[in-house]
């Protein structure tokens, strides 16, 4: 710590409040200019999947529909993630401005914030902020309006098609893709679904220009990103850092000197053991050397006092409960993985049964309907392969 400190960035939480000036500036420019700025900035979705934001808005603006919608995905449920809550607490006006900009570009009159039930306490202050924002919009003669839609406790609703099912009054079960929301989203109409942080970054890009954002980060991973840091660290919290950092530098900065593994991207992400800290970089897949891991911002650090068996078991219990149950690979797979590692630990199954379970995760990766079932393989294989002895003894 100290000499190896990573550079702290201060863009998202920067104290800027001039919604009216920025909106006026946005409304005066052409859609093409705005989209070019977004694409030029290199901004990719900050929920974890990393779809280029400018392209998403462009596709939706070109799609045909009776109405169009902007949805801010505030169903932040990935274990270890808590940055969106902080954005909505400290700088909600930046998110609202991002939504209004998107609405103007794609031609939507209505925006929703899908807020998870676990964050219900944010509703009163957020509603007040929306009311003030609507006044600003009225002055600028914009008829874009934003509503809060509450979730009811379902991790899977962070998946965009499950989120829209939920908004339509159904069980939050993911849809088949295609069609993608850019063509057929909420109520079958073209819809942009963006993560809270993604929308907040739009503020920076439209206020300060795409260069300021693009100058941060490396290669295909541009800009800064909020990281939710927890676990065995003396300094847990939310930090804005540049993309592209090596995991070794991260651990030198935030670890407690005894870090044995970092879970990058939450339960759906990858567990990186100490011996791979140096070769692992945090960013989107691209031209980074070595392994590059994307993340929605969840960084959980484990020190040598932790049993990785307990960690994996906790994840599997999580997935078993949160699987929507719609497709068999995920519904049954999650149950069998959990039972499987318990049986190996008890000694009811031989150690090579783990290999069979690894094959099951491969099947889930190929056949599960949505990201939930597909990504169970990430944490499972990275923990079982790197901490095999802890699974058995």
């Amino acid at each position, binding site marked *: 710590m100290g000499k190896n400190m990573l550079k702290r960035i201060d863009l998202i939480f920067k104290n800027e409040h001039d919604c009216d000036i920025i909106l006026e500036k946005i409304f005066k420019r052409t859609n093409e200019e705005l989209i070019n700025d977004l694409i030029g900035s290199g901004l990719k979705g900050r929920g974890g999947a990393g779809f280029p934001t400018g392209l998403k808005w462009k596709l939706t603006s070109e799609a045909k529909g009776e109405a169009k919608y902007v949805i801010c995905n505030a169903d*932040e*449920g*990935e*274990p*270890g*993630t*808590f940055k*969106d*809550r902080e954005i909505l607490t400290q700088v909600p006006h930046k998110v609202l401005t991002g939504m209004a900009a998107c609405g103007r570009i794609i031609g939507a009159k209505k925006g929703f914030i899908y807020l*998870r*039930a*676990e*964050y*219900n*306490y944010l509703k009163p202050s957020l509603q007040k902020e929306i009311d003030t924002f609507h006044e600003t919009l009225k002055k600028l003669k914009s008829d874009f309006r934003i509503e809060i*839609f*509450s*979730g*009811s*406790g*379902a*991790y899977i609703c962070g998946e965009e098609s499950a989120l829209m099912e*939920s*908004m*339509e*009054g*159904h*069980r*939050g*079960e993911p849809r088949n893709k295609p069609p993608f929301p850019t063509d057929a989203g909420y*109520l079958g109409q073209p819809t942009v679904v963006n993560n809270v942080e993604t929308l907040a970054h739009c503020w920076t890009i439209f206020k300060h220009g795409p260069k300021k954002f693009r100058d941060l980060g490396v290669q295909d991973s541009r800009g800064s990103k909020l990281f*939710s*840091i*927890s*676990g*065995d660290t003396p300094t*847990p*919290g*939310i930090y804005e850092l540049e993309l592209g950092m090596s995991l070794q530098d991260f651990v030198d900065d935030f670890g407690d000197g005894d870090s044995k593994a970092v*879970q990058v991207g939450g*339960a759906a992400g990858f567990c990186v053991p100490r011996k791979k800290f140096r070769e692992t970089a945090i960013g989107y897949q691209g031209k980074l050397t070595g392994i590059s891991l994307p993340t929605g911002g969840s960084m*959980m650090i*484990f020190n040598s006092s*932790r049993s990785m068996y*307990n*960690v994996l078991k*906790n*994840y599997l*219990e*999580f997935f078993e*409960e*949160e699987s*929507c149950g719609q497709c068999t690979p995920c519904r049954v797979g999650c149950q069998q993985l959990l039972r499987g590692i318990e049986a190996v630990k008890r000694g009811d199954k031989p150690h090579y049964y783990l290999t069979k379970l690894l094959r099951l995760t491969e099947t889930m990766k190929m056949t599960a309907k949505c990201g939930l079932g597909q990504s169970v393989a990430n944490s499972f294989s990275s923990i079982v392969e790197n901490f095999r002895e802890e699974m058995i003894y």
Partner: protein
Amino acid sequence: MTDIQELVGGLVKKFGHKRENLLPVLQGIIEKERSLSDFAMVEVAKQMGISAADVYGTATFYSFMDTEPRGRYVIRVCKTITCFMKGKNQILLALEDSLKVKLGETTPDRRFTLLETNCLGWCHKAPAMLINDEIFTELTIEKVHEIIGEYKNK
């Protein structure tokens, strides 16, 4: 008309009859009643023109839409990894001790229900719990007894 019928009527009037208003209507009932009774769900079905099975199927998908009777204060202790690492089991024991119920149970006076839940988004201030919509973080055993003491006097 019973109280529930009136409540449902008011909510349907406020949000509308369309299917996309189902969640807000059910959430409105939860806010008042803390859980969804069979009677309430059938009433929603009647008033919104949806089948009762559809209402039940949708409600039971969501972990915050309880169909079992619940106490006035529903306590949800986070059990996901960081809270687990930072001692959520001790917090749970302290709650069981203070409320004299086991996990999943409701106190006989119907004031408290003790549940676990998945990640609450306070991993940097673990362990955490919700009581209805109020959040409590960096819990200790002493803090738990203090909080429950205050709620008992509410």
